[in-house]
């Protein structure tokens, strides 16, 4: 499989600030890749390094085998969907979408047709005559997508493209983006701080913190087997078990993660691990109850996602927690 994007020990330092620090990354052609992390974690800087708006202070970047350092943004076969969409306010929607073709010197009639096709692809046919100011946020987002895709980029970069949309629209756009990516076969690199978005859309994802990749893997791997304490906290809401608690369970590790849905309030059966404690609080979340149990070691509390149909035990009542040994994942301290 061809490598679309390669980061080889890439750093981008701003004075003493290490925005991106020794990042290694290989994204395959046709992959939907997410960069996930809190703000200031370096994910957007990585995207800007790819787009060419930033130059690395160390390391090497390749886009489809070609060195990217020193190549200006307008000579790269990548296009960006900006967080604020960055539509040109003085141009019509059609002129916005055709902009990339216009500056490449493609004829008026040909670029008009290509732009109209691109608008139809993002389900905005016939909107070409309007101005950006006359469209809703969701529509502008689609225009920004059409404007990038009309150039047939080898890699499409998306910088928090759904951040400004409301929940309903966001879910709809997630599905559309995903199916668009599959049908076009273009490599998508998607930056987000929303772990749900990254998990549901990406083929693979990288979790960033403090300019470094904390973990790289499929959504299942990252969710089920967080490599560091940061990933366990940031992706989903895993229980983080201290060394002392791990020892009590017969595991020698600095930290371990345990997913709330892997824990059952039930007596242990055939080789399962168990902890006993008292219910500290519970809250109803719809499909599940979130039950927090005080297990009495180091003041540790374990959150349990229990099917709502089972009901919630009263606060203060003693319970036994059980979980399979393979659901307890040792982690590095980072």
């Amino acid at each position, binding site marked *: 499989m061809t490598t679309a994007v390669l980061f080889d020990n890439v750093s981008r330092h701003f004075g003493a600030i290490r925005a991106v620090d020794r990042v290694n990354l290989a994204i395959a052609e046709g992959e939907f890749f997410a960069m996930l992390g809190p703000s200031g974690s370096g994910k957007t800087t990585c995207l800007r390094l790819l*787009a*060419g*708006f930033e130059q690395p202070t160390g390391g090497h970047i390749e886009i489809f085998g070609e060195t990217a350092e020193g190549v*200006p*943004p*307008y000579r790269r076969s*990548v*296009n*960006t969907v*900006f*967080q*604020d969409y*960055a*539509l*040109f*306010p*003085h*141009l019509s929607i059609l002129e916005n979408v055709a*902009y*990339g073709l*216009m*500056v*490449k010197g493609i004829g008026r009639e040909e670029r008009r047709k290509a732009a109209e096709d691109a608008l139809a692809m993002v389900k905005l046919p016939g909107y070409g005559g309007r*101005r*950006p*100011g*006359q469209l809703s946020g969701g529509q502008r987002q689609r225009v920004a997508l059409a*404007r*990038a895709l009309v*150039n047939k980029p080898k890699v499409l970069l998306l910088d928090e493209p759904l951040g400004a949309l409301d929940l309903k629209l966001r879910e709809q756009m997630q599905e559309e983006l995903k199916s668009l990516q599959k049908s076009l076969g273009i490599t998508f690199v998607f930056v987000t701080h929303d772990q749900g978005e990254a998990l549901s859309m990406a083929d693979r994802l990288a979790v960033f913190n403090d300019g470094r990749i904390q973990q790289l893997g499929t959504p299942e791997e990252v969710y089920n087997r967080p490599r560091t304490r940061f990933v366990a906290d940031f992706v989903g809401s895993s229980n983080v078990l201290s060394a002392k608690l791990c020892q009590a369970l017969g595991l020698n590790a600095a930290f371990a993660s345990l997913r709330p849905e892997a824990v059952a309030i039930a007596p242990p059966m055939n080789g399962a691990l168990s902890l006993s404690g008292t219910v500290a609080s519970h809250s109803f979340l719809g499909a599940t109850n979130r039950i927090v149990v005080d297990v009495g070691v180091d003041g540790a509390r374990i959150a349990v996602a229990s099917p709502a149909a089972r009901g919630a035990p009263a606060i203060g009542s003693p319970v036994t927690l059980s979980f399979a040994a393979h659901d307890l994942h040792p982690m590095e301290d980072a």
Partner: protein
Amino acid sequence: MRSEKSNRAPFGLKIAAAAGLAFMHLPILLIFLYAFTTEEKSYQFPPPGLTTQWFAVAWSRPDVWAALTLSVKVASIATAFALVLGTLCAAAVSQTRFFGRETISLLVILPIALPGIITGIALRSAFSIAEIPFSFWTIVLGHATFCIVVVYNNAVARFRRISGSLIEASMDLGADGFQTFRYVILPNIGTALLAGGMLAFALSFDEVIVTTFTAGQQSTLPIWMLEELIRPRQRPVTNVVAMVVVIVTFLPILGAYYLTRDGDQIAGASK
């Protein structure tokens, strides 16, 4: 939306507003009136008789044409300098961060805050120290110092409204620096440059103080007028010239008004 009632001003306020406007504009009408007077030595009111002969006299006087041509040339070239340098400076100050940015911003604006007489004296002594002979270009240089400020002020305000990602988006879509300037930056700052350029032209066109210090033997139009008022001969010619200047400058100002009004509508729609 205000209610209809609160939109209506009290009668006294209307009178005051009308009187204020009349106070500003009636003297200009007086200038127009004296362009037609038959009395050439003094401005007596009412004029003893009306005539259009001064138009012919003004037309045939070479000193009028010399002063007018010089003023138009100086104002055009000073405005052209100001448009290029003011825009570049505004772009640098508003789009990038560098050491001394605020200081540069202040230094650019300073000439318009300084009294013209100080700018004039400063330039005159600088020219004589550097042994630059007074010429057309020394006048242009003097005018450019304050023309740049107006263009800069207009452009910098507009540049701040252009989001940085617009320029990045243009580059991302394959436009190099010149294409980005041509297709994205210029359309967005165009009306600001037009307004700044008009104002710069107007400032240069009627400038007296800096010009008296930086001009040699040449007279720009305002200096010619000043000299003419002292001379008790063919005085209405000055009024004819003043009238023509008012009419000629009024048209582009009207044009600029309509152009910038359209620009604001577009900008307002995207908010």
